[in-house]
């Protein structure tokens, strides 16, 4: 029975692993840290899996556990910014639609996002993932109104970082 559970977990995680990758990308810099956080999130998901009853979608549930791990349980500080991640953004631009101005802007944008604190990153992450404010407020445990207010402040903060 335990084996069935394990099999079902591994299968679902493999299919949805990009969620975790995206969080790792936002919260770590460098390949080793990415792997490290990916592993910790996987362990936490597995530990919480017996309680996952399928009344919500696997992805919704995984978002929450993964974000909680990155913000709360993961010990290493995420504040340091290395030059690595700036370069990271380069290979995300595909050759066919290469646009110098756009690329510069994106690079600045990623840099600005990396400068945000852990909580602000979580909000931006859910914004990028098209989560509505209801889900954002439930995941973080803050009110919907305050989540909105905070989101607007973060947008302002990003704008300021981009146009000092």
């Amino acid at each position: 029975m335990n084996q069935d559970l394990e099999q079902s977990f591994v299968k679902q995680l493999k299919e949805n692993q990009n969620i975790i990758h995206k969080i790792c990308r936002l919260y770590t810099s460098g390949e080793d840290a990415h792997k490290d956080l990916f592993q910790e999130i996987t362990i936490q998901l597995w530990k919480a899996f017996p309680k996952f009853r399928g009344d919500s979608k696997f992805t919704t549930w995984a978002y929450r556990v993964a974000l909680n791990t990155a913000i709360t349980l993961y010990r290493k500080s995420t504040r340091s910014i290395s030059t690595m991640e700036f370069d990271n953004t380069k290979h995300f631009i595909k050759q066919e639609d290469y646009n110098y101005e756009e690329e510069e802007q994106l690079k600045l944008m990623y840099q600005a996002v990396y400068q945000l604190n852990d909580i602000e990153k979580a909000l931006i992450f859910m914004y990028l993932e098209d989560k509505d404010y209801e889900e954002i407020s439930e995941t973080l445990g803050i009110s919907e109104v305050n989540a909105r207010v905070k989101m607007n402040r973060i947008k302002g903060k990003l704008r300021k970082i981009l146009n000092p």
Partner: protein
Amino acid sequence: MEELDLLKKDWKKNENSFRQVSENEIYKMIHRNSSSVVKWIMIIGIIEFLFWIGINLISNSDDYFKNLNAGNILLYMKIFGYVNSAIIIFFIYQFYKNYVVISTTDSTRTLMKNILKTRKTVNTYVWYNLIVVFLSFVTGILLAYFCNPEIAPMRDKIEHGGTAMALGFIGGSLFILAILITLVWLFYKLLYGFLMRKLQRNYQELKKIDL
């Protein structure tokens, strides 16, 4: 905000650009040990409980007290011993209760609150023990001073030495105690500062949003 839309577009476009982890790798991962903050808080918490229980057991000095002419005080100390055990069991129960509540499926804020609560239980436990150590130390000195026949000659000396000598004796004892407590406090600041800094900072950040 135009830039943010651009970012979103890029974010979506690169959704599938990550090196995919195989099923085999995931199997291996779930059999590895977690290195999460909660796990370390749990381990250190248990060590603390064991440490102070150990100290309590070692400092069991019934034989010594039997030689004192302390009368009723012995009975009080025995009663205190039982009360102390009950209090420690209560702390362990609280610690366990708080620990099992911690769940990554809660909201971020609840999760953090529960972790901090677990930590607070252990902190209170440590402070309780420090106070007990302080009181035992003072009682010990007073008992030794007034009730231990072997110390009587020294007592004579102090009493004839006047207030200065007595103050010196009390001051010296308190000084040693203060150094001990400061060392313990520093140790905790370092140990938990290291573990909890990030968590505390993020918790404050969330609280600030929801004021």
